[in-house]
């Protein structure tokens, strides 16, 4: 009788041990990555590439699905957050998701997530090829001489490219006549037709037009210059205007996130594989071909970047009158 009891006890113990070991091992089943933007957008493509590579190392499937809609991707984010916080559901996000809060689609702060930032494409300022400005200095001087006379196009009010334009204005003292467009592509088209003289979008979005000579790049809105095939080096705007470093860079941050309550060991397992993938040649080649700068930030570093973006976007939108919810009620600090 006693022997049986010992055996049962042992069995229970072994099972529990196995169970514990099981908990340590991640992942044991397929992962779902819910991209909060539509298929084919930058966030979607980026998440598909990274998930595909991570799936190979994890040896499970990572199913990428799209759940766009709401404001700032709020429908997808709410959906992921409402599922178990076990690390098996990720949210494919980008920097613009930080606007969901002030737009009334997300009632939490952005620190409830842990981020894995793949990177983004840096912003570049270009002009219509026959515009009289040879470099950034000439453009800024002309804009200062007659404030509001030069038309500058960028995607909608409060978008990342508009924020870049605003930061350039603040840092250089120039004032442009900002013309909003529904997206980067129409803004670029407007620059080609001459409806606007200046356009700010990302390098990835502009590269074809720059290389074909339909747009002429003046400066990068990042501290580093950028080398482009067929074009050469595009200088940084920080050279002539060092004051810009207070406001810029405002970089795209594309990647994925898991709820912060996911167990530490799971987050560590994801981070480990994520870093391996970011360092892999496949990703490097992909980034180069697609004009992306890889980041690879995780943990505290990544969270800080998103909190910075959150406060910047939230307060800018509020000042522009484009926000529904006062950032103060969400306790978002001022930038």
């Amino acid at each position, binding site marked *: 009788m006693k022997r049986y009891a010992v055996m049962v006890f042992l069995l229970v113990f072994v099972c529990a041990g196995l169970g514990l070991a099981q908990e340590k091992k991640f992942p044991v089943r397929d992962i779902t990555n819910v991209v909060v933007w539509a298929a*084919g957008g930058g966030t979607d493509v980026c998440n598909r590439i990274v998930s595909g590579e991570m799936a190979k190392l994890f040896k499970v499937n990572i199913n990428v699905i799209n759940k766009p809609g709401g404001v700032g991707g709020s429908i997808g984010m709410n959906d992921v957050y409402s599922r178990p916080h076990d690390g098996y559901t990720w949210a494919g996000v980008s920097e613009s998701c930080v606007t969901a809060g002030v737009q009334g689609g997300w009632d939490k702060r952005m620190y409830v997530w842990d981020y894995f930032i793949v990177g983004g494409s840096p912003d570049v300022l270009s002009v219509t090829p026959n515009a009289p400005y040879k470099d950034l200095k000439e453009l800024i001087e002309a804009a200062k001489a007659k404030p509001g006379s030069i038309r500058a196009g960028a995607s909608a009010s409060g978008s990342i490219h508009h924020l870049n334009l605003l930061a350039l204005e603040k840092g250089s003292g120039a004032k442009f006549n900002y*013309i909003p467009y*529904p997206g980067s592509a129409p803004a*670029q088209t407007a620059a080609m*037709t*001459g*409806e606007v003289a200046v356009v700010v979008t990302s390098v990835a979005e502009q590269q*074809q037009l720059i290389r074909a000579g*339909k747009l002429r790049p003046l400066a990068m809105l990042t501290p580093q210059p950028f080398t482009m095939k067929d074009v050469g080096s595009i200088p940084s705007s920080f050279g002539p205007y060092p004051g810009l470093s207070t406001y810029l860079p405002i970089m795209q941050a594309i990647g994925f996130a898991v709820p912060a309550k996911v167990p530490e060991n799971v987050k560590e397992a994801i981070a480990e594989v994520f870093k391996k993938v970011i360092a892999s040649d496949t990703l490097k080649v992909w980034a180069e071909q697609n004009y992306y700068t890889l980041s690879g930030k995780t943990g505290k570093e990544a969270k800080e970047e998103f909190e910075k973006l959150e406060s910047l976007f939230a307060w800018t939108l509020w000042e522009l009158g484009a926000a529904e919810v006062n950032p103060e009620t969400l306790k978002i600090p001022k930038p």
Partner: protein
Amino acid sequence: MFILQQIWDFYATVFHTALSIENILLLFGSVILGITFGALPGLTATLGVGLLTTLTYGFSTNAAMITLLGMYVGAVYGGSYGSICVNIPGTAAAAATAMDGYPLACKGEAGRALGLTTTASFIGTMVGMFFLALFAPLIAKLALQFTSFEFFFLAFFGIMISGGLTGQDLVYKGWIAGLIGLFLSTIGRDHLQFFPRFTFGLSELDGGLEVVPVLIGAFGIPQIIQVIRDQLSVGEAKKFQRVLPEFGIILRRIKTIIRSALIGVGIGAVPGIGEDIAAWVSYGTAKKASKHPEMFGKGAYEGVIASETANNACIGGAIIPLLTLGIPGSPPAVMLLGALMIHNVTPGPMISIENPHFIMEMTAILCLASFATFISGLLLAKQVVKVLRIPPPVFMPIVLVLCVIGSYSLGTKVFNLYLMVPIGILAYYMQSMGYPIAPLVIGVILGPMADENLRRALMVSQGSFLPFFTRPVALILFIIIVWMFISQTPFYKRFAGELRGKRFKGKMANPPTE
């Protein structure tokens, strides 16, 4: 020599693609799915292409494009089924088809009408493809002539033309309906500065009225009420035996077909506007050019042919700026752009350098898709007509359920139903007072474009209206709109009638139509 090389290349690509069984299966599968999407209210070409984009991620680029273009061509064609059989266009692009398609069906000629649209769609797609293959760079230049000033006029033109064409007794009624649509489109946060307009604090209205529930509500509900109220039965398909139309009918209208196809390609190439305007402009032009304009709206073959040729020719046109400039020419082309990005093809001026064969491949796929649509269309049309044999008391409730599902499925929002029903009731009363519905829907579709571009244009010119008259393309559009407006007023008609009357000493028969 270059052209011969192109043609050879084209045939080689077509046969290479068509030789694989998988490709053919994919092609027919997606085309038939597309036709179903087009025919069902609420499921549009844009939605279909968008849904398939995610599903085709794992496919090769070629296979994905076969699926997506098959869907696109099929859905644009399929919209005519609803228009002809039940007077509820499956897509906005097919609204003009209903003008003559439904009267034809009431006369018992639904089969012939479907046959005509099948052939017209086929020819339209082929013409669009032809232009894509040969004149892509040239047409891409045209797209760059359009700035906010021109876009405003174009959108306004689209609303006015559909208004001018559909008014049954008084042309003003069509315009009034168009302006009501334009007004409805201003609901929501404006796209330039996010100022909430007519939202009454409802966050559901922030994004504006969605087109699909408006489309379904405005076309579907009045039709359902009317059929049930009047115990109408759509002409039984007794007269109809064949779907393959007599070639005589097609040949005699070859001029209409070519004109409509050219209009379709041209409008498709202009970014941002798509199949719906193409169909209306082409319908209007056909009516103007016809010797019997009074037949239009009562079941003229030309009317069906004109709108269906144009909306399908639009596809080739819309792909041109997409591939050569990276600017999608129509809403479904926006989805195609996304799909291309997923497959690591960035469309734009460098595409012919980075992917030299890509435009040719797209052309070949478009060609195959139009053949597949033609074949599936002929096979399906025969079956679809049988739907009309179902007695209306059974059929209409089914249509109603489909309408509700169609509205709801878009974004799975119950709010869409709250939108659909009042708009449907409004549309029913408008219709019973003789106001046409199509301009209202076109107003809702094109309103944001008119509104946004007018305001952006004024931002660009810093408040000056002058550029509207100094830019050549804008001026031409302005003159066309003014002329269209004046030539449609009863005052002008009487005046012109009198003039003509004098010239022909009263023999000329053009009495005012009061």
